[in-house]
């Protein structure tokens, strides 16, 4: 019988790069309530790091705003939402393309590629001028149940 955990944590912090490490570590700790392997927890850390970095770099480019990270455990699934109220993305499909970057000199355009690779689900909702909401979900492979 699989235990069902229902839990939720919400974090709000200013869009400083120094907070990215805290956010990914906190989400991984929260996620460890499920049967994720160490490799999977590393993957979650990377996905969160990419999503929060995007909010800092692109969402609030040159300015400071608030980033909200909401983690939920629903059954055997981790859901993470990363929200900003920054500039938004005008073309989400383009942003998801491998190697697409608005800053080719310094960035590789791999951030969202990692998120897609490491999480089971990725949904990006964004509107220019209003902000971006990145929803990601992952279930542990060891006890993953498909209905």
């Amino acid at each position, binding site marked *: 019988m699989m235990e069902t955990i229902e839990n939720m944590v919400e974090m709000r912090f200013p869009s400083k*790069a*120094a907070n*990215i*490490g805290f956010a*990914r570590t906190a989400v991984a700790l929260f996620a460890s309530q499920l049967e994720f392997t160490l*490799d999977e927890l*590393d993957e979650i*850390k*990377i996905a969160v*790091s*990419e999503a929060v*970095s995007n909010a*800092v*770099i692109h969402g609030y480019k040159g300015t400071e705003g608030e980033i909200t990270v909401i983690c939920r455990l629903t059954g055997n699934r981790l859901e993470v939402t990363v929200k900003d109220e920054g500039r938004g993305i005008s073309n989400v499909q383009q942003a998801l393309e491998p190697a697409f970057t608005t800053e080719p*000199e*310094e*960035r*590789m355009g*791999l*951030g969202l590629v*990692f998120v897609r*690779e490491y999480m089971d689900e990725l949904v990006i909702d964004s509107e220019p001028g209003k902000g971006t909401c990145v929803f990601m979900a992952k279930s542990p492979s060891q006890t993953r149940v498909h209905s």
Partner: protein
Amino acid sequence: MDIAIRRKRNALIVSLDGELDLATAAEVKERVDAALAANAKVNHLIWDLEKVGFIDSSGLAVLLGRYKEIQARSGKVIALRALEPVRRVLTMAGMERIMQFADTEEQALAQIGGKR
């Protein structure tokens, strides 16, 4: 992030201690670029990643950016002692195409065939 940079033969060995992400990328980039600029005869770059527990695309961008400089100097880039989680990210990003992996400094120096 603790950054130690030393020169051995015609290689720069950069030892990092910490997590390589957006918060630390700029400092690593500045320190390594300054060292490369100050050592015109250096043409290889060895990243000692033994104490790097985390890397994401911001960290990879630092490695890739320095690769371009080393390529211009006809040198090689080596990832030394990369831990498994970091190595997995490097491999997934296809960094094996632009850098070699080594388990010991001697091995790294042998791979670049450094001139004295």
